[in-house]
């Protein structure tokens, strides 16, 4: 945004910001990949089966690899900002990039056979995944509120289309419209919040906002700033699916095609939590006494609403949707812990624990919805469809059991490491109350996961149930996710060490 502000009109009216192309390469690869896939897909006859998914996974893999190179660069030379302060170039951004790219790879594998032999089979869905991933990465690495808004809209618009992408299903169209109306409402609240914060601080750039608030002592624009912060929190609360802004979540997760739901729950959450940390912890540390209690309340409500309402559902996708609300609660516990150190040199454990949680949760939730996609396909995901799954498809049932146990936070799974990290961060800052509430609601939520497991392992097979066929790519994705969740649950030290290196640009 300060492209114009930094230009010196006397010396050279056309001075351009210096652009470091390699640092932007993950984004460029994703956008380029999406456009190329779309263009070539439109110009050539239908590709042989699986090639669209392969292309999308390879583009995402390339972007993720470039992000890892950039991570090394940041570790050596320290974080900085790109494109005249519009984007942050730090390990936080790169971790989000890698997580979102991994989500695209896994979701592409799930989508492949899911849309084969339907009118949707083509490059469009995969292009939308790549575009949405770009938007998500921009959100998580934005250093300017308007850039963050653009990333949010890029992600959201692609997700609205993806949610409504199953044209044979009324439920999919309905979920797309509901998501669009409520998402648009949240986006406009968020934008109005940006406008008010801009009025109070005189800039939309996060670094300039911090400086402007630091030099201003009288606090005469506090009313404007506080109203803006409230609107920003409401808008972001919608996007992270925190209670009480979670109303859209069960309907949209249920109606959208299962691979798309997996993508929303993983990449969407990574992006939205990236944004919440950028805006609040990084951008508005001066007001942390004002917004921190709100985050506390949102965390509490999400934990309670998510776990208790999940238990009474009968549709597996709705159960997982409510469980994602309770996971949002856990993540907000981490954000609340990070808030204690907002604006200080020592970042605390909150931010790394949130990012570690997001990575592990993304893999788990993609695996879970992958199993749902394989077992019920386009049909209604009622719990009855999972009865006796262990007898029909033991490996799928084992994988689903791993995902559910890990989401419940059972030791020797990544879910435990994730939850432990967040609780540890909360205890570090003496937020004992919310840590205890989180653990108690985790026990309630465990009942939900046990219910699905009992259905799979102890109930008899339904004679009329359609046969379950596991496609190769989807099986590979589910197997890899299950293996990841167990292996790195037992040996988590690599990921913990890497996540400790996560810092925000200042």
């Amino acid at each position: 945004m300060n492209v114009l502000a930094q230009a010196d009109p006397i010396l050279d009216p056309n001075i351009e910001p210096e652009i470091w192309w390699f640092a932007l390469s993950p984004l460029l690869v994703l956008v380029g990949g999406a456009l190329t896939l779309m263009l070539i897909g439109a110009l050539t006859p239908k590709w042989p089966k699986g090639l669209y998914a392969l292309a999308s996974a390879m583009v995402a893999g390339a972007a993720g690899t470039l992000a890892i190179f950039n991570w090394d660069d940041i570790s050596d030379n320290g974080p900085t900002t790109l494109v005249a302060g519009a984007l942050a170039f730090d390990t936080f951004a790169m971790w989000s990039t890698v997580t979102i790219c991994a989500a695209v790879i896994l979701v592409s594998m799930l989508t492949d056979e899911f849309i084969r032999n339907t009118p949707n089979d083509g490059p469009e869905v995969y292009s939308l995944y790549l575009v949405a991933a770009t938007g998500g990465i921009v959100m998580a690495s934005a250093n300017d509120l308007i850039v963050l808004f653009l990333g949010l809209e890029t992600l959201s618009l692609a997700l609205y289309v993806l949610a409504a992408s199953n044209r044979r299903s009324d439920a999919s169209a309905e979920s797309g419209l509901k998501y669009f109306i409520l998402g648009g409402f949240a986006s406009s609240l968020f934008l109005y919040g940006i406008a008010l914060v801009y009025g109070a601080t005189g800039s939309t750039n996060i670094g300039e906002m911090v400086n402007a608030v630091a030099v201003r002592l009288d606090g005469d624009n506090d009313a404007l700033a506080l109203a803006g912060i409230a609107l920003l929190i409401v808008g972001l609360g919608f996007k992270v699916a925190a209670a009480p802004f979670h109303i859209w979540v069960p309907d949209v997760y249920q109606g959208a095609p299962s691979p798309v739901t997996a993508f929303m729950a993983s990449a969407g959450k990574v992006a939205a939590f990236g944004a919440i940390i950028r805006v609040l912890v990084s951008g508005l540390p001066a007001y942390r006494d004002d917004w921190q209690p709100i985050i506390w309340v949102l965390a509490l409500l999400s934990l309670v609403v998510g776990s208790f309402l999940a238990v009474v559902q009968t549709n597996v996708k709705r159960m997982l949707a409510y469980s994602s609300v309770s996971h949002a609660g856990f993540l907000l516990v981490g954000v609340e812990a990070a808030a204690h150190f907002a604006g200080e040199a020592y970042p605390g454990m909150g931010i790394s624990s949130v990012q570690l949680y997001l990575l592990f949760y993304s893999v788990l939730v993609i695996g879970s919805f992958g199993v749902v996609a394989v077992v019920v396909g386009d049909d209604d995901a009622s719990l009855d469809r999972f009865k006796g799954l262990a007898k029909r498809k033991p490996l799928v049932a084992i994988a689903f059991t791993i995902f559910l146990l890990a989401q419940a936070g059972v030791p020797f799974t990544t879910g435990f490491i994730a939850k432990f990290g967040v609780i540890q961060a909360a205890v570090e800052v003496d937020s004992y109350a919310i840590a205890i509430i989180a653990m108690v609601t985790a026990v309630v939520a465990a009942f939900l996961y046990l219910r699905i497991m009992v259905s799979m392992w102890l109930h008899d097979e339904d004679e009329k149930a359609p046969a379950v066929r596991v496609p190769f790519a989807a099986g590979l994705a589910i197997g890899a996710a299950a293996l990841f969740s167990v292996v790195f649950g037992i040996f988590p030290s690599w990921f913990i060490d890497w996540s400790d290196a996560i810092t925000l640009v200042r």
Partner: protein
Amino acid sequence: MAQTGSCDVIAAVEPTWYLIVSSLLFGIGAFGLLVRRNPLVMFMCIELMLNAANLTFVALATSLGDINGQTAVFFVMVVAAAEVVVGLGILVSILRRRPGATADDLAELKG
């Protein structure tokens, strides 16, 4: 900012007034979204809210003497246009299936 006569008249209007107008517009949009049942009208309310935010940006940019708020408006206009494309596409696909559907009719997903 005020160089010509007509701009003097505009500058004579306090920036606060614009903020009040834009907050009223935003409120009307939010209220309309919550009470109206026609998806198309709800969608128009979202556009109204986005444009209220735009007016806020311009008013604040003028009172701060800062160009960045005005450039932000252009980005938002592009986003609103993209939103129209996506939103109308989804609406058409629903209304083709169920002509005349209101938000209350779209209640297949619940639990």
